[in-house]
């Protein structure tokens, strides 16, 4: 089982492998830079645990854990 984006710890980085799920949503995630090979870091979670704040290509993006589950990732080798 590959890991999905929602399982990241705060501060952890990973590399996007693929985006699944609803095609239109997946398209928008990709357009926002979550393409295969992109490096993503979980900056923090919102006070109530959700949504999560990601850093991708140097900007900050909020997505919900539920939706992040559609994004498969590989753990980054660089800490």
């Amino acid at each position: 089982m590959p890991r999905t984006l929602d399982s990241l710890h705060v501060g952890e980085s990973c590399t996007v492998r693929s985006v699944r799920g609803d095609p239109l949503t997946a398209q928008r995630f990709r357009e926002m830079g979550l393409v295969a090979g992109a490096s993503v870091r979980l900056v923090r979670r919102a006070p109530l645990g959700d949504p999560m704040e990601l850093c991708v290509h140097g900007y900050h993006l909020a997505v919900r854990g539920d939706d992040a589950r559609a994004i498969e990732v590989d753990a980054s080798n660089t800490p």
Partner: protein
Amino acid sequence: MAAPIATAATTAAEYQSAGEGKKNSAKGVRPICIPHIVVALAGNPNSGKSTVFNRLTGLHQKVANYPGVTVEHKTGYAVLSSGGERKETTPARPMMTADVFDLPGAYSLVTRSLDEEVARDVLLGRMPGAARPDVIVVVVDASSLTRSLYLVTQAMELGRPVVVALNMIDVAAATGIEIDATALAGTLRVPVVPMVARKGKGIDELRAAIVAAERAPAPSRLWSLPDAVEREVANVASWLHEQGGVRDEAAEGEAIRLLLSPPPTGGAFSLTSAGENGPDGADLDDFAAAARADLADAGVPLDSLEADCRYAFIARTVERATARPRRYVVSASDRIDAVVTHRVFGPLLFVLVMAAMFMTIFSFAEWPVALITSLVEWLAGMADAAFMALHGRAVAAGWIAATDWLTLKDLIVGGVITDGVGAVVVFVPPIALLFLFIGLLEDSGYLARAAFIVDRLMKRVGLHGKAFIPLLSSFACAVPGIMATRTIENRRDRLVTILIAPLMSCSARLPVYVMLIAAFVPPALVIGFLPLQGLVFFSMYLLGMAAAFAAAWTFKRTILKGKSPPLILELPQYKMPSARNVAITVWDNTLRFLARAGTLIFALSILIWFLKTYPRVDEAPYLAAFGPEPAPEQVETARQRAAAAQLEQSALGRIGRGIEPLFRPLGFDWKVCVGVAASFAAREVFVSTMAQTYVLPADVDAGSVTLIEKIRGHLGHDRGAVPAVTLMVFYVLAMQCLSTLAVVKRETGSWRWPAFMFAYMSVLAYAAAFAARQIGLALTG
């Protein structure tokens, strides 16, 4: 909102000619001597498009630090090159002017929400009434260059010259990112202008670049797809070109969207194919579907291919043009967020910010209000004196009868100055303060964080955190709030947000709250330091919010069921709020409030004055009741009785008593009923109606009766704050705004939703006010 839009009158003819012969566009065929072009400002949300627009046109479109500020396209007139005679040293420069479009932000031309659709339609020349742009300026946020270039690559496929405005290089530099604009321009093969739009840096260069680009050929596509796909793209492109009459330069981009974007609902593929010679939608869809099926059979990952290939090109481009810090730099923005979105401090801060905002508005509003009140009184005194001074002369000259002169005086001094417009104008200070706070919140970047923090709660009621931003804007006025819902992707969620937006207390309710609280809530302190009045004031806003959440919860479970699309919200970096932006917010909105006072409220005050003054009641019988020679006190008493009778028997009194039974369960007397009814035209009028319908009780000295005393007189002291609270609850929840209903009609396309909104809010307001009264009466015994 109210910014005047300067559109060059001379361009109407050109719009027409551009519409007829799109192919022979700008070049050569212009009948007008001064070249005039159409420039569109595209770009991701919050990249600074409106800031650039304002600098180019001198207008003041709303600018703020959150994505989704601009939701409509706006036009402005700009002089790109003022021209110059040929001198010995300088060559002649042609003069050039432009219509500039400020567009809503978009992340991609494959749109997800209404505001993005507006941007796409204008760029493609499909927006009715807007000519297809001759030059496309893509405003790019240098601090998130990679993502911004996605839209740039798409814009380069629209068949028009592109200029990249590399904005916010100051923000990028602060995080250690240096961008080599020349290298970027070299790779993209379009001009790149580094800018700090907020400070006006780079605007002249941008103007020059637009002028130069106008004659440049359309850019060519620099990224490539796998060979098999390229062949198919070429196929579709030539089909589009031959069968569909799509211009050659734009056909390829169109073909890529057709083949590689997931099919949108409704099959509205024909992106560039506007106009009578566009391809037939059904044919096109069949053709594209067949091509997609072929590619899918060949094992091409259709869905991810386009983004992957564009980003591969972008990654190389960015690599070549930027130097970034070796290690991750913790920006000031990150440090602020560590507190603002902290697990404990975050929500606490959120509540504190809101509470402090409303309590400050209430407390600090007092002395400026007092100041303006004395100003109004002074003005009334002057007017009164002027009338008295001219009295003798006007009457002696036979212009006017003595009694008519006094009636006129009463209209001007009482009906308009003190009790009409004046009663409303005194609320300018708290309203300006409200907009100061809103301006600061909006331009700092906090709004997006607020949406981030409350998303979890919004999820409970079935909405997005994103829907919170339009709701917060509705504290100013529901009309822009409802416009701002255009950023919400899903139609149902958007409707729910529209329906609840007017429950947020807007600035027109503020005078009603301030007045009722000042009159009925004692200025005590709670737990030693919290002002009770401020707390009650804040509670009214909370009540509105709570009602909005409850209503959303209900709608999402009944009439507007459905899953929300995913939340995808960019959190912009914090910025020091710009004094200019905040000042414009305060100024524009205060001015709008004053303009309302000077027009609508002025007219209503006069109307109410007439209704309360006619038909006339004669004073004589009341005087006669005291015998032939009444004492001075008796004269006064008789006058007051006459005034009371006058009001009772006036047209206004009759109207009021007609409505009274409807509101009797809420305990409103007929004067309050009149105020409530007049509020449908403008809520502020409640205040002036109260002032106008006040009749001095017999034992009060006529000298100076303040507005607050008048209100006390209306609602009575005996039941404490109960009548005032009942009335406020009613005002929090009632739909009393025609402009809101009109904008809902416009945004939803039918009268059904505004009618529903009016119905549900009226029922809610009535029921809640009734409950508040019963509880209040039970508590106070």
